[in-house]
């Protein structure tokens, strides 16, 4: 998991509307930020053009972006960076890591050390996830 502190100048993500306007003349890869009620399957044809997709947590208890991330990874095979932005708290890290996020921009004031520690409590999990597809029962039987 990559910890990002602030967006560097020139590295701002485009909104979906900006991307639509830029789509036909943009060169190279761009970064995109989408709202958490956006249907990510609409991006299927464009994914190779994104170096990074930012998924937003307007409130940390709004869990829609976990499904977006999971779909981007497992269904659409997006291979670029998936970054969690918005109200991103320490205790979300295990969930973010397991649904396909590869980078987080913690909310101001959150401890990176505590966030790293939050990733280390469990020996494994029951259900498969975007990193380990097999549920525990399949791993235990293997």
């Amino acid at each position, binding site marked *: 998991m990559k910890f990002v502190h602030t967006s560097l100048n020139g590295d701002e993500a485009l909104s979906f509307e900006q991307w639509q306007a830029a789509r036909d003349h943009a060169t190279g890869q761009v970064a995109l930020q989408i709202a958490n009620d956006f249907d990510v399957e609409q991006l299927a044809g464009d994914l190779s053009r994104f170096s990074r997709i930012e998924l937003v947590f307007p409130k940390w208890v709004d869990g829609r972006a976990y499904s977006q991330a999971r779909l981007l990874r497992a269904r659409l095979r997006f291979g670029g960076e998936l970054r969690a932005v918005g109200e991103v708290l320490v205790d979300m890290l295990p969930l973010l890591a397991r649904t396909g996020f590869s980078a987080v921009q913690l909310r101001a004031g959150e401890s990176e050390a505590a966030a790293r520690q939050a990733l280390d409590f469990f020996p494994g999990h029951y259900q498969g996830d975007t990193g380990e597809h097999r549920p525990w029962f*399949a791993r235990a039987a293997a």
Partner: protein
Amino acid sequence: MYAYTPFDRQFVHSRAAQFRNQLERNLAGTLSDDEFRPLRLQNGWYVQRHAPMLRVAVPYGELASRQLRQLARIAREHDRGFGHFTTRQNLQFNWIPLVDSADVMDLLAAVDMHGIQTSGNCIRNITSDALAGIAPDEVVDPRPYAEILRQWSTLHPEFAFLPRKFKIAITGAREDRAAIAWHDIGLQLVKDEAGAVGFRVLVGGGMGRTPVIAQEINAFVPWQQILVYIEAIVRVYNQYGRRDNMYKARIKILVKAEGQQFFDAVNTEFGRILTLDEGGREHIIPEAELARVAAHFVLPQGLVSEPARDVFADATPGYRRWLERNVHAHRLSGYRAVTLSLKRSGIAPGDATHAEMDAAADLADRFSHGELRVSHDQNLVLPWVREAELPALFEAAKANGFATPNIGLLTDMIACPGGDFCALANARSIPVAQAITERFDDLDTLWDIGDIDLHISGCINSCGHHHSGHIGILGVDKDGAEWYQVTLGGADGSTLSGAAQPGRVIGPSFAADEVPDVIEAVIQTYRSERQSGERFIDTVRRIGVEPFKGPANAQRTLTSDKQGSPA
């Protein structure tokens, strides 16, 4: 019953350690109360009127005597000596200081227990039939599937922050003893014509402000695919369920609003997981995994069927009554299931003291291979009792106050803790329950009234399932005072009650002191209107609620039956 593997055990200890870390950060001031709240909720810690409430999961209701003794110890050493069994097969403590909470989680983990996902906007404790694995009307034992579902739903990373809480119930019998149509997902195990096992899947049931009965979304999902099918339902809900208004955030609202479109979206998503997703077929349950889990749910060691006996032979009247109400048929010859009634005069429905928990654990060891069940009706059940030992169990249960022969009768009521404990409640439940229990303390009267479901909730959150009571009592708040709305004709979906449906209101709310009179008037109306052998709910169905309104409203001494009351 299921025995934890080393992995399961390590997992609950890890969860306890994670919680201790969160608690310590909260106490140190680096994790704010607002941010700690959803985290502690998902471990069962819910700050209530007096102290945090801890809700401990008893997955699908199965409890070992050693676990019940640990719960007794927690009650004794950390609470004020008692706990409350709930309709969703949980046990709640009311008085544990939050600073003790991490220690209590360690105590639970030590006996393979936890509070994981017993609160919060996540997939809650999976409930089932209290007679699972022992009922004669069972088609398929639901417990292995319930355990597989428990594991799958535990700390699911995608579904930890849903729009609202999410409850799943599962039954494998012909008779629905788990009220599945009142759940976000209701699962009924069935066999198709070829004998293959699958699930009839219901979705979108729930109580609360807007009572809704779940609808069938799929008549037969092969058991191997059930995790994938539920994943599809929960993903569609996570993406499209409302988050702008917590009163409209349950899946029932989405299902009602979208109807067939919701069903289509789920079925499409189900197909896409299986055909498109990397790892999408990994959660198809292999035969070997079902066999591994099912191997835990075999007959307890040393238990063998015996010739059936006439248990009523030479029964004294008191013993006969207990046999008729508290002793249930068993699939195994020579055995019975026995309910230990937690509904007795002077004690809140579903409550048990630490001494009673220890006593029930002792009875389980002596008569039931160390196993108990927590029932939807807030009682304890001993699942493996030899018919030959029923007389001895009766005496022992009586000595411990568990032998009130009232199972299924008026005083075997469901009630939430209400305003005495719960910060959400508008009104108290326990005094109303007690007043009714005292009013109907005559066993002959109770028996004459016969089978009836009386359910009491202290507020519209409906923890006491008032919507599904043949008689439902709902605490409401008007101008800061407690009032009670009475409904008739609700049903949980059992054979006795008929298809699940919410009850109908019989008039403006009553004052607390009027409620016992109102219930008595309703019962009197039934007794005068009933046809020979007709049960309460059938009379209500036949004549409707109108004939009950006059006698009930005539009991008002403090309120008016005009709109806009209370007076």
